[in-house]
């Protein structure tokens, strides 16, 4: 292979993001974040509609209290671990919380009709930028919440998540929430995932097994306090 061909091959590989991405495989613990505003340092930049929704949200209506799927970003801020299974064309996240998964299709496009068929965990595509997996997610069912505190979103929510391998035991997770219905501009928080112990394993979780709480949930609107 002559030099020109080699440079061309490296440039091509670099462009498609296939140059030795880091291996994220393994068991990881989340950094529990029940209220995103605490991680941000202040409330998100609401539109007037978003502010009204936040003012009136009632945490008894939390979809996860009814065992509905947790949504894509809240799965990464819940107090439960996940397993990464990584291949060249897909990175899969298997969450213990609600026994739910996310599949990130590497170097693919969103289906053209995804906004008409939203999913609780959205549709995710990704690419590698050096040591960082960049995930783009749309088509997220507006019934999911962003956190336990009751930050909501619309079906227009667009998530950009960046997962950077800092070292063998730590991943830096930055998530950007872009939702023109709820927020005047995109905003981001950063969390750290920590590798589990060698003996850790993802365990069974059935929210419906004994969800006694649901019958005791009572109105908890801020406006009524």
């Amino acid at each position, binding site marked *: 292979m002559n030099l020109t061909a080699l440079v061309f091959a490296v440039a091509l590989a670099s462009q498609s993001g296939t140059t030795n991405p880091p291996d994220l495989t393994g068991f990881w613990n989340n950094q529990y974040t029940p209220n995103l505003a605490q991680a941000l340092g202040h409330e998100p930049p609401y539109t007037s509609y978003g502010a009204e929704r936040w003012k009136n949200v009632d945490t008894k209506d*939390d979809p996860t209290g009814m065992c509905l799927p947790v949504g894509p970003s809240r799965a990464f801020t819940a107090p439960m671990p996940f397993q990464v299974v990584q291949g060249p064309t897909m990175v899969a996240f298997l969450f213990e919380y609600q026994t739910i998964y996310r599949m990130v299709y590497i170097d693919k496009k969103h289906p053209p009709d995804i906004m008409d068929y939203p999913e609780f965990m959205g549709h995710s595509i990704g690419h590698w930028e050096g040591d960082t997996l960049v995930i783009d997610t749309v088509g997220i069912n507006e019934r999911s919440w962003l956190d336990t505190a009751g930050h909501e979103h619309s079906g227009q929510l667009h998530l950009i998540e960046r997962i950077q391998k800092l070292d063998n035991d730590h991943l830096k997770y930055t998530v950007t929430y872009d939702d023109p219905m709820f927020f005047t501009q995109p905003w981001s928080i950063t969390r750290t995932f920590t590798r589990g112990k060698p003996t850790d394993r993802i365990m069974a*979780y059935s929210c419906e097994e004994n969800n006694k*709480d649901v019958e005791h949930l009572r109105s908890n609107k801020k406006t009524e306090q």
Partner: protein
Amino acid sequence: MRRQFLSITGLAFGLFLAAAPALAHHSFAAEYDRSKPIKFTGKVTKVEWMNPHVYFYVDVKDEATGQVINYACEGGAPNGLYRNGWRKDSLKAGDSVTVDGWRAKDGSNTVNAGSVVLPDGKKVFAGSADDGGPGARP
């Protein structure tokens, strides 16, 4: 009067310091009332080591009336408790326990167990990070 003031201040301070229980799948305040702390000692009648939270039931006799109340106590998520070393038989029917927690808003005998202590002082099954629950700090 001064003593009463001190004890109320101490109580308020203690509540302020109390770790917020780790409830992932619903807000604490949607089910429990932080202004209604409760503490009792009684006998465990049943343990449910199940998702999304463990529940255990405690018979408590009201010394004044002689009436026995069976409290339903919510603890942490079983997987998190397991990883912190608890097992489903760490607490068994017949055990005597002291529970420190908060009452449910709906007036039922449901309690969020902030701390659960056996007679030998050993803490088991609790929902908060301080008590070996699924460590949960924002």
